[in-house]
């Protein structure tokens, strides 16, 4: 009988294993190789700021730091009406940051505070509208939201994944009750349940006897071996390098034209409609806008797709009797910036999404003006 049989020099196997472990320790002994993927994409020229005001956090990411924003809000004693601003990294990144620069989120919070309105911002890199829908339905349980500010970013309609730190709100009954009848809600709940079902093809979320023991071993190994505890960040580092390599090989830059992806676009448009419907059911004022984009050079979108997208967003908003405005051109070219290369070359690249602090000032000002019109 012919069996599949390796019979190699055992010395080379042992040396190979030890060499692998040695290389791991050698390459990753410094902390520079620990990378958060979402931050990495922003580049070194952008600074992430989640603002505090008077010692209270008023800008958060998702469920991971929601408690900070909640604590800040509750400490005010008076239950002020909340204006919720959902968005992507444009809201928390400042290009060419200088000490003391402030984000639009903080500036708007200060301005509206004078009118006894509490502005809270939640933003995540490349956040899509399905994620906004989930987060909104979750935040309704915690804050007396009266107004919703919603930027609709063309680029983010190419996204479909729901990050774990937002998807976990689907374990909350309040959220399920809010969204279970909507198109987007049904899809997201079904996807989440499939993923967590015991008969799912690939995912294991069963509560196995082994899990506790496995976690214990993992914790022990984390304490014993530094590299083991850093593995998540090392995976991030490897994927980041792959991303740079891919961009280098295929000549991909931030200026490369990105086509609309029909399935994802449709899902996000449906989520947009469901956000407006949820807002109506909860008597929220909604203000949607097309965010600023650097447009002194050709934008990285298919122009026809982008034009149709803007028309569609405007039509849906107006059909629901909500306010829509395009803020595309409010930030002049000099307030934008560059970012570090997103491939292996060293050249700087144009940043279409993130502007300098002056841009944040203009965005906050424009929104403030529009919101005061809304109040009238």
């Amino acid at each position: 009988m012919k069996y599949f049989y390796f019979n190699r020099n055992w010395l080379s196997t042992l040396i190979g294993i030890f060499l692998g472990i040695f290389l791991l320790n050698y390459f990753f002994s410094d902390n520079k190789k620990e990378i958060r993927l979402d931050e990495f994409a922003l580049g070194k020229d952008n600074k992430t700021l989640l603002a505090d005001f008077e010692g209270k956090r008023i800008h958060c990411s998702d469920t991971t730091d929601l408690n900070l924003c909640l604590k800040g809000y509750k400490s005010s004693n008076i239950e002020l009406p909340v204006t919720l601003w959902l968005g992507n990294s444009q809201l928390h990144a400042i290009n060419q940051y200088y000490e003391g620069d402030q984000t639009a989120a903080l500036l708007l919070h200060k301005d509206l505070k004078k009118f006894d309105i509490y502005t809270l911002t939640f933003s995540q890199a490349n956040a899509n509208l399905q994620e906004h829908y989930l987060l909104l339905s979750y935040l309704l349980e915690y804050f007396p939201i009266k107004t919703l500010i919603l930027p609709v970013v063309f680029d983010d309609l190419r996204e479909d994944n729901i990050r774990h730190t937002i998807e976990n709100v689907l374990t909350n009954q309040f959220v399920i009750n809010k969204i279970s009848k909507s198109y987007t809600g049904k899809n997201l709940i079904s996807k989440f349940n499939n993923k967590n079902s015991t008969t799912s093809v690939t995912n294991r979320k069963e509560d196995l006897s082994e899990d506790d023991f496995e976690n214990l071993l993992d914790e022990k190994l984390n304490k014993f071996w530094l590299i083991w505890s850093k593995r998540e960040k090392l995976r991030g580092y490897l994927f980041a390098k792959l991303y740079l390599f891919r961009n280098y090989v295929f000549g991909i830059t931030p200026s490369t034209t990105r086509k609309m992806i029909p399935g994802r676009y449709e899902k996000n448009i449906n989520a947009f409609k469901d956000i407006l419907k949820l807002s109506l059911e909860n008597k929220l004022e909604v203000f949607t806008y097309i965010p600023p984009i650097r447009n002194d050079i050709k934008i990285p979108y298919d122009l026809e797709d982008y034009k149709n997208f803007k028309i569609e967003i405007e039509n849906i908003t107006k059909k629901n009797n909500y306010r829509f405005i395009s803020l595309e051109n409010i930030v002049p070219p000099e307030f934008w910036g560059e970012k570090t290369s997103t491939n292996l070359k060293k050249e700087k690249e144009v940043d279409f999404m993130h502007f300098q602090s002056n841009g944040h000032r203009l965005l906050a000002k424009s929104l403030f003006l529009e919101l005061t019109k809304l109040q009238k």
Partner: protein
Amino acid sequence: MIFNSLTYLIFLFIVISLYWLLPYRARLILIFTSSLIFYGFWKIEFIPILLISVIVDWWVAQKIIQKEKNVRFFLLLLSLTTNLGLLFYFKYLIFFAETSIGFANIIGLQLDPIILKIILPLGISFYTFQTISYTVDVYRGFIKPERNFILFACYVTFFPQLVAGPILRAKEVLPQFLNRPLFSFNFLISGTRLILFGLFLKVVLADNISLLVDTGFSMQAAYLSAIDVWTLAFLFGFQIYFDFSAYSLIAIGSARMMGIFFPNNFNFPYISSSPKDFWQRWHISLSSWIRDYLYLPLNKVKIINRSEGGLAKAVKTRGSNKSLFFTMGIMGLWHGANWTFLIWGIYHAIVISVYRFIEPKTKNFPNFFKSFAGTLITLPVMMLSWIPFRAESLAEAFNMWLKIFDINSYLWLGMRENTYLVTFLILISFFIIYFFKMKILPIINSKKYIFVACDIALISFVTFFVIIFFRTINQFIYFQF
């Protein structure tokens, strides 16, 4: 216990150490008890079900050789009824009940859906087939029944192959337990290598591909282009191959560390130049089982009786179409109680029928052309079969299949660019690795120092990535079967 867990690695280290330290009899008890611990780590309450299967088949086999023909047949039926009864209850009852109610509603009988909560015991499909093969082999007179209960129990419950195969024959494993292998470093080293390669395929490749596959298959077919459907078919084809061959490699490696040899379960299936070739390279132990216990007996052809060779002989043996479709349908349903798996089996039956029709007409073609063109045609045909295997529903599977005939849907893309890129790179790498193994490796093998240097580089590369990606986020796909 899951192979890609720290728990398993520590468990294996303890079992292997004790195994080589203990005398022969104690080794068997060690294998049996450690196998029960391995199984019980998942859900301890299913151990009795496993033991029922072991006890019934051990007892039936003892009796079957002593009795006259009619009684022997009755005893065989008793074994089959027990094993298949348990399998039916745990795996197919819900499907059967839902299907019956569905049909009843179609013909106008309004029946309320029944709610059954039955958890499928891990590996039941695998150990059921294994115990059935034992009893049938004894009934056929191919092997003598094993009198030593512990030895027989070791054969059925042996932890490396208990939950996802390979499905082995008693005559291949029992003599190895009896042989009392002497300790050799080669066992440990070759076993470690296989486990390392298996972990690489699982935690580095299969688990990372699964993120793209899950995203793609969660989209409605309406939003997928024809290119997306092809891409997802190929990508899932590679995911399931890496995942399952990883399991097999770790199983073979774990057994090897105890001096027990298992046959190979996969052999570069996507290089196949025909369906016949594919079925002697893919899940070889299952397809060999199907060949020996279903297809060949149905066609009254002499069986091979070993867990190698796959379905090649069955494809070549032109039995009736009914038996072909029946066999492949059963093979599909073995994977899961769902219409999608049945369709997967039927699809392969159709492919084999077409192959049988075309094959004689290609006899005069040059071999090189046959093999090259055969691979070019067989690969996409086999990859398309994975659509119903992975699709969320039968309707989605058909909608996805229909897409590939829609010319207009070749004009756009519905997924992120990375998905196509990853699929392309894996496909190219697969062929490069095959070429390397077949053409370059024999050359390197003859140059001692170059071989050792390459070997060290390969093992350090695999170790490096396995450590970084080692996580228990995903079960092996075949755990659900």
